[in-house]
């Protein structure tokens, strides 16, 4: 059961409240805020809080909090996943930066969405495609239509396919040029220890499909090294039994862009980049030297490199210069750290980029602080695992679609300890 939902902003103001079962008093929001005030960082408020009258379950996304008060046994993950779903729908409708501002601006639309998504405390229509067929997202065209033709954002009929066995695809899709593209994206999450050992390493890979095909196409995709995707999390359109039996990805795609599958590879992997940090302390000041470079055997452009060095807030000043790229100091939102950001558009071929200089701490500050560097980068046309598309078959349609495959790798949580 999902009895109620409060969407509140960071000061505890209720932006939207909706009750499906009974009516929870607004006091629960105050109770929640009292808990939040106790924490130094807002993100540290425990997600499930026990209070004398009820339990408060919340999810925090940016500057808004989704809060649900439950007063009887309900699986907390069920509540959290509904929160998650609501946010996903909002991201889909309003773009990736949903804030309290967004919620205010699209108030009645969100209220409408909530009404469709949950009925009487039960999740109702939560599939984004279906919702979109009922309630149109606010696009510029829609706004124009609303203004001039006085048409409405709420569609009048139940979407087709609501009760079919393929609810994710709408019927009667038509395109002039049919094309299907696959993006093989990989994200490297790792922790590199002080001695350059990889203590944690995980590749999160996903196959993202952009499908613009008419009719009801049936697609079969095979990849090289299918063992790599053994533990994949699949989109619901993938025929799971076929996949388990033959390691072949066979599916009727939804329309548009979607993540077909996500896989995880653990254990050592080839990293495209090395980072060698060193920090030594003498009398309250630290000498910093960080060098980075490509580890690729053949040349691949490594782009958008950013190295974040979080220093404690006690740091007085930093005097860091780089022989390539730009350096800036940023106060983090939580106030816990003072971060030095080193940005490089790409790694130059002729020299190895180095950041050097010193940081100053107040006298008496026992400096033994070893920051964990956070590194970001992008590599195009390359992936760590070597996963490639082997074959692609589109059946049940009369046309020959255009087909494309791209690969890219980027840093996820790429941490380097020093």
């Amino acid at each position: 059961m999902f009895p109620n939902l409060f969407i509140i902003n960071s000061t505890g103001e209720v932006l939207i409240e909706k009750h499906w079962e009974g009516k929870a008093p607004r006091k629960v929001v105050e109770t929640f805020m009292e808990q939040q005030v106790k924490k130094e960082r807002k993100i540290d408020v425990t997600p499930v809080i026990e209070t004398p009258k009820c339990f408060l379950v919340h999810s925090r996304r940016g500057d808004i909090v989704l809060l649900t008060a439950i007063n009887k046994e309900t699986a907390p993950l069920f509540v959290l996943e509904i929160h998650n779903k609501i946010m996903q729908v909002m991201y889909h409708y309003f773009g990736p930066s949903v804030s309290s501002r967004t919620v205010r601006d699209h108030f009645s639309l969100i209220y409408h969405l909530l009404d469709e998504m949950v009925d009487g405390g039960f999740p109702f229509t939560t599939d984004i495609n279906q919702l979109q067929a009922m309630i149109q997202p606010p696009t510029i065209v829609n706004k124009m239509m609303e203004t001039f033709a006085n048409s409405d954002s709420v569609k009048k009929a139940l979407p087709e396919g609501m009760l079919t066995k393929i609810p994710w695809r709408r019927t009667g899709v038509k395109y002039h040029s049919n094309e299907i593209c696959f993006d093989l994206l990989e994200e490297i999450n790792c922790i590199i220890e002080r001695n350059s050992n990889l203590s944690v390493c995980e590749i999160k890979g996903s196959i993202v499909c952009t499908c613009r095909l008419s009719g009801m196409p049936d697609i079969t995709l095979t990849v090289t090294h299918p063992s790599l995707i053994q533990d994949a999390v699949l989109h619901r359109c993938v025929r799971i039994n076929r996949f388990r039996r033959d390691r072949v990805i066979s599916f009727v795609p939804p329309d548009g862009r979607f993540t077909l599958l996500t896989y995880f590879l653990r254990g050592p992997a080839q990293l495209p980049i090395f980072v060698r940090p060193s920090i030594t302390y003498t009398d309250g000041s630290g000498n910093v030297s960080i060098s980075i470079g490509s580890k690729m055997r053949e040349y691949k452009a490594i782009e958008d490199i950013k190295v974040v060095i979080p220093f404690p807030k006690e740091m007085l000043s930093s005097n860091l210069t780089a022989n390539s790229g730009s350096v800036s100091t940023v106060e983090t939102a939580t106030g816990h750290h003072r971060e030095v950001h080193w940005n490089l558009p790409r790694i130059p071929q002729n020299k190895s980029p180095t950041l050097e200089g010193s940081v100053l701490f107040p006298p008496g500050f026992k400096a033994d602080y070893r920051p964990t560097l956070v590194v970001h980068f992008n590599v195009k046309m390359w992936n760590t695992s070597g996963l490639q598309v082997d074959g692609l078959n589109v059946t049940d349609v009369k046309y020959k679609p255009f087909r494309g495959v791209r690969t890219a790798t980027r840093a996820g949580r790429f941490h380097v300890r020093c």
Partner: protein
Amino acid sequence: MTSRRKKGGEYFKTSNQRGEINELKKNLKEQKTEVRKDAVKKVIAFMTCGTDVSPLFNDVVQSIGTSDLELKKLVYLYIINYARKQPDAALKVVSQFRKDAQNSDPLIRALAIRTMGCIRIPKITQHLVPALKQALKDKDDYVKKTAAICTVKLYDINKEVVVDSKEDFITRLRALISEGNPMVVFNAVAALTEIGMKSGKDVFAMDSNMLRALAATLSECNEWGQVYLLDALAAYEPSEKEATSIMQRVTPQLKHKNAAVAMSAIKVIMKYLPLVESKTTRKVTLDAMRPPLITLLNHSIHPPEIQYVALRNMNLIIQRFPDMLTGFQYLKEFFCEYNDPIYVKIEKLEIMVRLAANSNIDLILTEFKSYAKEADTEFVRKAVRAIGRCAIKLPEKAQKCVQVLLELIKTGVNYVVQEGIIVIKDIFRKYPNKYEQIIGVLCDNLDSLDEPEAKASMVWIIGEYSARISNSEELLKNFAETFENEGPQVQLAILTAVVKLFLYKPNKAGDLVKEVLSTCTKKVDNPDLRDRGFVYWRLLMNPATAKQIVLGKKPEISDQTFQIESKTLDVLLANVNTLSSIFHKPPAQLVKGGRTTNFKTKDQADDEDSSDDSDESSSEDEESEEEEAEEEKPKAAAAPTNLLGLDDGPTIEESPAAVESKPTTASPSNKPVVVLSATRGQNFAGLEVATKFAKRNGDLCLNLYMKNKSQQPLTKFLFKFNANFLGLNCAEFKPPTISPGSTVQYSAPLTYEGKISDQNFGQIQAALKTQLGVAFFYIPFSDWSLIFDKDEAIEDPKEFLSKWEDLEDHKLPISSPKGTDPSFVQKSLEGVGMRKMAYRQLDASTGHACMFLSSNILDEDVLVEVEFKSGNLIAHCRADKHAEVAIKIVDSALS
């Protein structure tokens, strides 16, 4: 009008609401559908932001007969929300609902059923029952699924009808399960589960046929359907054969992207696994569970909130299957990252300690060591404690752990040292006489100790090893010098340590022990300390016996302290993915087991409690809660008599500690707080304001630091407080002109003549109007010493007592206190401007005690009692008007 419709948000921005409502009323009577539709939309926008639009009920429902589907839907939406306030008006519309329930369009049929279920008045039953029965047999799947859910709503309105066997609602719901459409199946399952939970009866009555039907539908349902189906499976008691086959069906769901599905699948497995004899099946299933469990921790798929719930559940699972995740590759998944929220980090630490084994301890220690160097103090402390727990858990590797602790202590970072000493004390207790060579290092850090627990631990160590520490008498003498300023925890430790010292080195410590014993027995008002002083004194008359007793062998401690008892663990594991599994408490202690309390309606909520408590007492699940409440009552009554015993003894005199100790709770408002940023304003930008409450000539005032970031000079100001918890009011506000780019500091005098509101404790809502517009913001108020006046507080115990008996008692248990020892409480409360009157130990064995404090708010006496009871704190507060505020302040000062 059309431009208004662009954004829902603009519906709010009306200044003249009454005029608006009149206009709406007019528009609702309009002929044109579009105009009416727009009006209903506005009504709904008003409604959803809390404005009372019930007077428009009659006007809105007039549009219900419309053929326009959207308008119909909007009207239905309105009715759902307001029918309760206008039940008679709603009944007038019922005929229309029944008509719509016969409509040829399935969508309208479903909508009518859905809305009727939302009108929660008893009279609706007679109309709803026939319509619902028909809908449950409708030819359209969409209507059937809606009807299934509506049956639950009917149950909330009228229980009897639904469970009545003559009406056969349950039979019809069960019949839906054998139907093919997964959507219908899962909604029927959801309805049956919900009714079963609310009624406490097994309405489901699952048999092996239904079991098979559910298992077959499982993979075709959507994610929520799977959750309901899996939970239904987990409630069933299968045979071994069924268990094996169902587990096979369930295993693929472990990989589901939706964490609720994966966790419900784990729940089924946890329930069914013990029934299976075959070792291979067990192994295969456990192996299959491992990767999905790890996936639940994956931050790129799941937000931290979900990781937290997963970690709490995992903590239980690995207690039952300890070998499941000990491998290196799994252990690494629990490594903390510096930007994880603290609750995730702490849970990960807990699990790592549980997974610690001789084979992996090196890796774990390296990891803990790096955590102990992070910036987050709370986490660093937990990491140091975790190292200590590993040392106690793994005797063979204790040496390594101690080495790491020493390294950390040598860094000299204050809180690391203190925490390190606390855990080393435990290590000494577990391994006596093994690591005494490190005492020297500990002694180097004596000066930096300022926390009671760390001090007490250090004193204990010195006492225990006083024979081997050459200058132990000097060290203890130093501690004894400040004896009277210490809290009871440290005092007790010093007393015991000095006695030990004397027994080891009788000729060197004779004077010291006499001095401490006489202070304890003559000067101190803590009965516990005094009594222990007397006991030692008597004991020392016979040194041989004293040696036997004081220096005898002590029971060892072990790491079992954190283990959950096996039977409780069974219960908790059967409840994986519930609230019980998060708080690690069995359901009976936590949730009002199958009881169905609905949240009260808003008007009911105002007159709280009274009815709620009386109907709870009949329920058995309530037992523990009730018992506690009953226990507390006689105590509250007994408190004054205890205090009475005080004023004839000499012990009432203020302990010197109370007078000298300075407030240690750092007052958070030392720095002005930015309450309004120049860039973040909604429709107001350009002025940045930071504020700080302060006292000027004894009167409270608000210092504002205003920075003009706009292009124009600011000359006109209007500043107001909303009704607030203190009743503060700002009467005068005349800051000088602020030219662009400059900052002005202005101190606004405050009075207590404003309206008092019980909303927003600790915050004051203010509005500031300038040429730039009106800005609303909250000013946090947390420096309580500004309003508590210690000097005006009652000092005479008799006066205190008579007042105490006159006034009404307000009680509040402190839910999560930062510390529970009396010295902490005293320090914290003195820090906010209270005066300690007395401290009384009621029952030394359970640590039941109470502390009385007094203070003054706005010329009004405030009397406070803090009760220490089995590790919990309960605050009582008595005052004329401000008791509620005072008790909240006590709460916030202690937690």
